């Protein structure tokens, strides 16, 4: 039987990827960030030992255009390419998929009335890429886990509601637990926390709100998920509205959760956060 063995929330920011590729791990401006991810990387490798990662992310004008924009898109492929975002491809290996598990998810979730777009080819941009090498060791050709990319529209309103994202997470848990194989599944919700990249309010961050978020997503996720997009964006910035992707992760966890690790750092224009959760029930 499939089992959800970890829930992780993580920011995705292009500058983190650049810092990683340029090996700035001990650069004073970047060391706090990389150090912040270390304990979780260790926990995942030594205790969690996931077989598959469902990573919830959004595309940033890389692979999807506005001619045809999905609300939710699920990868159902054997492998996923690293996208070129216009500055050359990052030196990361392509990702192995678990097509059989993806198909199970697709069949289950569509039967459960989630109207997914299904992708047999999908190149992954920093929305997906940022967290992966900070959470799982890789060499030049391979990753130690298989992945299932799950894209959420957080670019063009109407976005799915926070509650819809939460329900998608709940449905993912049901689907995972109905999987006949003994597969250990980690769910990673990416995005946020506060940031804004448009208008006169460019650069808006809200550290207070971010810190509350890291607690409230644990204790009262349904209340958070009931906030309107306007409420979230007013506090967390227009692009901070993408935090709804964390609800998919949180909805896939049990009612009560246990905090394994928490980290927060807001050096430039984004509240960078990491939260690792364990199921309590």
């Amino acid at each position, binding site marked *: 039987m499939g089992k959800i063995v970890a829930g992780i929330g993580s920011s995705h920011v292009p500058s983190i990827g650049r810092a990683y590729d340029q090996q700035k791990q001990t650069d004073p*401006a970047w060391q706090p960030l990389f150090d912040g991810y270390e304990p979780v990387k260790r926990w995942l490798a030594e205790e969690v030992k996931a077989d598959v990662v469902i990573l919830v992310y959004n595309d940033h004008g890389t692979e999807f255009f506005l001619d045809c924009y999905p609300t939710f898109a699920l990868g159902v492929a054997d492998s996923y390419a690293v996208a*070129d975002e216009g500055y050359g491809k990052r030196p990361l290996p392509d990702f192995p998929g678990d097509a059989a598990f993806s198909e199970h998810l697709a069949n289950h979730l569509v039967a459960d009335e989630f109207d997914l777009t299904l992708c047999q080819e999908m190149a992954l941009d920093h929305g997906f890429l940022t967290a992966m090498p900070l959470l799982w060791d890789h060499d030049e050709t391979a990753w130690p886990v298989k992945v299932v990319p799950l894209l959420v529209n957080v670019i*063009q309103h109407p976005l799915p509601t926070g509650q819809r994202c939460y329900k998608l997470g709940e449905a993912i848990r049901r689907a995972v637990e109905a999987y006949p194989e003994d597969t250990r599944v980690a769910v990673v919700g990416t995005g946020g926390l506060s940031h804004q990249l448009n208008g006169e*309010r460019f650069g808006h961050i809200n550290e207070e709100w971010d810190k509350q978020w890291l607690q409230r997503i644990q204790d009262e996720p349904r209340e958070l998920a009931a906030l309107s997009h*306007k409420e979230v*964006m007013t506090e967390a910035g227009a692009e901070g509205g993408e935090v709804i992707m964390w609800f998919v992760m949180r909805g896939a966890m049990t009612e009560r959760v246990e905090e394994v690790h928490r980290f927060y750092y807001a050096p430039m*224009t984004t509240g960078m956060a990491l939260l690792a959760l364990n199921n309590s029930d």
Partner: protein
Amino acid sequence: MSDTQERWGIPGTYVFDLTLSRQGYAINKMCNSLKFDENREAFKADEEAYMERYGLSEEQKQAIRERDWLRLTQLGGNLFFFLKLGATLGYGLYTIGAQMRGESYEQFMSTRNVPGAT
């Protein structure tokens, strides 16, 4: 000033909703095309012809001629797409952002917690 600001009522913020997305569709389609090197070359060789080919309105063209990123946003340009235009023209994210705030790059950087983390 901008309809989307009235619709959403968040100061200094242009929520990219379907209405705005439809208004800016030509901008974003053109910018999206700049992910390919040969298109970046074609744009640089003749900006006017390239903008014409994608059917931009005069207002939209003017915002691009002036590298006015705030105006471009108000006219429906989406940053994730017009960053490709920025890259083509040599404007990075923080330069664009500082301009949208009405600040110099240095002024903007001085407002950051750890300006070295770029």
